[in-house]
């Protein structure tokens, strides 16, 4: 009995684009119209691959002298790919021809149950919902709506707890609304990108992603403030906070890209991390550059949190003054004495007249009597 196999054609992101059932051999795959499996990949030959039945009854793929060859995919890395002339096929075998990946399946490969189409179902029937639907209440639309609503509630609560003035009510209404508007703009930009790649906007999903990221950022700020409240001197806190913020930013970008980009997962993450790192470097350079600017600003003394202070890490007065001693060296280091010295000398001569010069050394000695 002739073997029957199924060839799946995968796109660049590893999604199945088409499936072809092969029942008679030899069969062909290529860009030509006479192929059994027709591929729209410009890197694929018109007649690229041939499927033949071997003497032992197994199906073997043979390269038909193609320009770019046939590759047996490695398990882990692209570097492990192996160029082959002949490859015996087994379920799960993946071959790359051109930029297309073919995967071998058997006809008895299981598939997940069909999703319940809640939005287009006919009039509600009296019959109980099918058992499969009961376990699948978390449709993407519901997750999106839930995440968005939870994030909105978090923004509103935060606004309420930080408003202390009479005009509290409008602030509680409008502050989260301002956030959501901003996030919707962001999600809109991603939706346009999504549309350019996949011919659909996916706006709600993008909005859910950015709302979730916003809520996480808020929690992050809150957590850092609490850590600072309990121990305002830990430089580690700010390092952790910066690392967490960067990770969040990279995660946000990667999540958007997973919807809007055709690149494989590894490349999407690499791009997200690269953009975040570039952003961090630019901000860091700006921060360092503006650190030298003179102002009379005092550093932020940190948030005071609604807690008794019993758990706060404290130092005694002596230890605090010992820490404060560092400020002397830090401010002294800002005064560049050598730069001023020549000016001061010429100035002294100018002010006190030429006769002052011989006295200069003596008067310096006199300086600390």
């Amino acid at each position, binding site marked *: 009995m002739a073997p029957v196999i199924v060839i799946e054609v995968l796109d660049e992101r590893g999604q199945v684009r088409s499936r072809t059932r092969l029942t008679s051999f030899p069969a062909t795959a290529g860009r030509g119209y006479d192929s059994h499996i027709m591929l729209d990949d410009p890197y694929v030959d018109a007649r690229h691959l041939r499927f033949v039945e071997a003497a032992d009854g197994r199906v073997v793929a043979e390269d038909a002298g193609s320009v770019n060859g046939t590759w047996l995919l490695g398990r882990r890395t692209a570097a492990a790919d192996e160029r082959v002339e002949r490859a015996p096929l087994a379920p799960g075998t993946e071959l790359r021809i051109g930029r297309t990946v073919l995967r071998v399946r058997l006809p008895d490969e299981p598939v997940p149950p069909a999703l319940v189409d809640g939005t287009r179902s006919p009039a509600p029937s009296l019959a109980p919902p099918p058992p499969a639907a009961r376990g699948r209440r978390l449709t993407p639309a519901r997750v999106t709506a839930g995440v968005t609503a939870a994030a909105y509630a978090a923004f509103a609560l935060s606004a309420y707890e930080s408003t202390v003035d*009479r005009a509290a009510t409008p602030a509680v209404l409008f502050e989260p609304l301002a956030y959501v508007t901003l996030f919707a703009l962001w999600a809109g930009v991603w939706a346009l990108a999504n549309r350019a790649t996949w011919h659909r906007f996916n706006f709600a999903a993008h909005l859910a992603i950015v709302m979730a990221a916003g809520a996480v950022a808020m929690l992050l700020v809150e957590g850092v403030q609490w850590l600072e409240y309990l121990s305002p001197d830990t430089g580690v806190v700010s390092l952790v906070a910066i690392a967490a913020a960067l990770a969040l930013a990279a995660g946000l970008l990667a999540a958007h890209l997973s919807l809007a980009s055709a690149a494989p997962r590894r490349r999407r993450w690499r791009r997200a991390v690269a953009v975040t790192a570039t952003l961090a470097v630019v901000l860091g350079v700006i921060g360092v550059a503006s650190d030298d600017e*003179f102002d009379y*600003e005092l*550093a932020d003394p940190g*948030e005071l949190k*609604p807690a008794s*202070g019993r758990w*706060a890490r404290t*130092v005694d007065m002596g230890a605090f003054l010992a820490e404060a001693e560092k400020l002397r060296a830090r401010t002294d280091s800002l005064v560049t004495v050598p730069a001023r010295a020549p000016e001061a000398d010429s100035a002294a001569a100018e002010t*006190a007249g030429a006769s002052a010069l011989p006295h200069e050394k003596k008067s310096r000695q006199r300086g600390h009597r």
Partner: protein
Amino acid sequence: MTTGYVTRAPVAGGSIRSSVGAGEHCCPQLVPRRAAGRARRAQPTRGPHVLPDRQFGPRRRSAPCRTLGRAAALAATLSALALATVPRDARAQQRQGTTADVFRRFADRTLRIQVTEAGSAAKASVGTGFYVDAEGHVLTNYHVVAQLVTAPGRYRAEVAGPDGAAAPLTVAALDVVHDLALLAAPRPGPAFFQLGRAEVPRGARLYALGHPRDLGLSIVEGTYNGLLEHTLYPKIHFTGSLNPGMSGGPALDEDGAVVGVNVSTGGDGLSFLVPVAYATDLLDRARGARFRPASDLLGDVARQLRDYQAAYVAPLFAPGTPTVSLGAFTVPTTPAPFFRCWADAKRTAGQPYELVDHRCSTDDEVYVSAEQSSGVVEVRHRVLTSTRLDASQFAALHSREFEGDGEGPFGSDDEVTAFKCETRNVRLKAVEAGGHSAAPAAGERRLRVQLCVRRYRKLERLYDAVLRAAPLGTGVDAPRRVGLVTTLTMSGVTFESVQQLTRRYLERVSWHR
């Protein structure tokens, strides 16, 4: 003191910059309180020393101010004309006779000091000075010649000689704390004032000589009104109209004895003189055997400021100095007699909290340069009370007040570095029972403390510092949540003083539940 001070006192916002000195430039009293606060914020200079007549620079008056000034000048001219043309009685005539006599006898002992910008050879400011010995020493205010000290090489001081040619003046000795400078002129004056320790009764008539607004030597009559009480060192309260340009001129009694040196004005005929005793001391010091002409003037200034701060810092916040109870909190107040305190409470209808603002400040400051004053200490307590906010909201309010406007006292990049800060939670030992705090805090006290320090660039070993503290955990107890933010601002102090004041100050802050 006059009521003028009291009404001017509590200006909203700001720390040192809003302190009320013994005098002001002419504008702030003429505008409403809030606007005055804003004006000061916008204009980094402050201080009483308006008397050198500067055409340029930050002391230039604003347009409305100039208009008012013109109107006042016109009014003054008109009334002077009226007085001059219609003498009321013989006594007035006699008085004018004395004034004319004083002017005739002593005018030649004063001189007009012009500070010239070296690059453009243009007039930067004008003040007055007077000869004090036969060797050609001239006494004036430090602030008249401050630019020679703080921006050396860029300015020179000149006096017009008899032939009209400008002759250079050099700085021989300084007393920055009392705002005096001794200059050396190239040749002795035609005559000089013998300095002593003049004692005159309150109400005695004094005659101030000077070059108001560089309009030529003028004589101003006024009365001696005793010494100011709320200053660290005494200043003479002179009721007479001193104007910019008269700085450094002598104020004489009818016999021509120098009683004081013109130094600043509070406007409306309220003026201040440096008592002659300090001038005598400076001259004696300059004549002493060990004296050599100062070649490191900034070093002298720094040393004098360090000695000065050591004297006034010593008693501040020491055990036994006054405290005040503001709600649940006991905090230091009136650290020394030369401090003055004000308080204000803000209870706005509908606002879910109330704020009591208590502040004390030295009434006096030491002029270092147009952009820098020293020797100001300010204490500020803000007490928050609320029964309507929840714990989180109260903490948000407390944080907002703690961070405040996030600004320290003004300063310029030329004079001071940026602030550097350390923030910690500090625990203090429990307060001993006693005092007027009914129930002392059980256990130790915990506060968030931030100390910010900046250094003077040109003056060795002098710093400005801002200490801010807020007790932890006072806002969690419902229904009555309380919170304190207390700030101590110090300027022109040594680092040792910063540490000493920080310790003493915080040890005098306590509260009960």
